[in-house]
């Protein structure tokens, strides 16, 4: 049976492919629809938050920090409620991570502030003695890429119908909307407004000056993203 295949490379290849593809089909595909339904209260990212998410990805924060709270008491005590599938509905890509060299960040917005992040990113060991996390000084100098974040918002809104400019039900029964700017200039203006709120809580004079001059450093976007993780 199989021995015949070895003399017939084409059929051999087909047999191997069918064997390995079958499992994938059964295992992966059918759960797609269900897992992608958002939980009540899950909102898409604003332009600045998304730009911050790009900063997070650019610096591979996910190499050391997970965003997945497992349903154990020790984890929920430490990080908050365990993760639900629908909470990730607007995460493209997912950032669960595979290694916790540092703590989980799934709900870091609940217990860390702008001020804390600013000090921590400049010198982690000064905030958490014994920390092995490197400093991220360049985030205070480089500018966040608002254009690409906006492009991604437009893309997911158009292609995957991510609900921007639409009412989203919140946990307390109220409604909330996340704005998608009509033009790139408007997106920049909106992001800058958001950035000003964050910069007001920061101490770094260069960052404050940059935001006042209409420029958004990467650190501001990153903090906006981290604060949104709840």
């Amino acid at each position: 049976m199989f021995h015949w295949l070895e003399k017939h490379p084409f059929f051999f290849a087909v047999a191997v492919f069918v064997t390995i593809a079958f499992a994938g089909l059964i295992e992966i595909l059918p759960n797609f629809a269900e897992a992608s339904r958002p939980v009540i209260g899950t909102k898409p990212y604003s332009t600045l938050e998304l730009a911050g998410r790009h900063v997070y990805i650019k610096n591979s924060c996910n190499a050391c920090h997970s965003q997945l709270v497992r349903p154990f008491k020790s984890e929920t005590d430490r990080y908050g409620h365990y993760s639900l599938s629908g909470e990730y509905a607007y995460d493209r890509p997912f950032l669960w991570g595979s290694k916790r060299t540092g703590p989980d960040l799934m709900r870091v917005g609940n217990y860390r502030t702008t001020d804390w992040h600013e000090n921590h990113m400049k010198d982690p060991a000064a905030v958490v003695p014994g920390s092995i996390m490197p400093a991220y000084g360049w985030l205070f100098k480089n500018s966040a890429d608002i254009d690409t974040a906006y492009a991604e918002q437009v893309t997911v809104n158009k292609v995957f119908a991510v609900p921007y400019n639409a009412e989203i039900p919140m946990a307390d029964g109220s409604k909330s909307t996340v704005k998608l700017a009509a033009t790139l200039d408007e997106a920049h203006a909106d992001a800058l407004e958001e950035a000003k709120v964050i910069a007001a809580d920061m101490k770094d004079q260069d960052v404050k000056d940059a935001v006042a001059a209409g420029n958004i450093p990467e650190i501001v976007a990153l903090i906006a993203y981290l604060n949104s993780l709840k």
Partner: protein
Amino acid sequence: MDISTFQAYAYFFFTAFMVVVLYSYIYHLYSSQWKGKRDYEKYGDLALHDEIDDHPIEKISENDEKK
């Protein structure tokens, strides 16, 4: 029947099927070697006699003609 139930069934039946196939194949291999119908082990020499002027274990043209 919803999709996840279907998945579970497909998974179990396919696993059972594979186990049967694999074990009957083991039986088939060893019984045909034992009865002398076919010598599988000669193919192990494919790696040892692999100079370009070595004789092929089974020539490609010969077999095609036999068919």
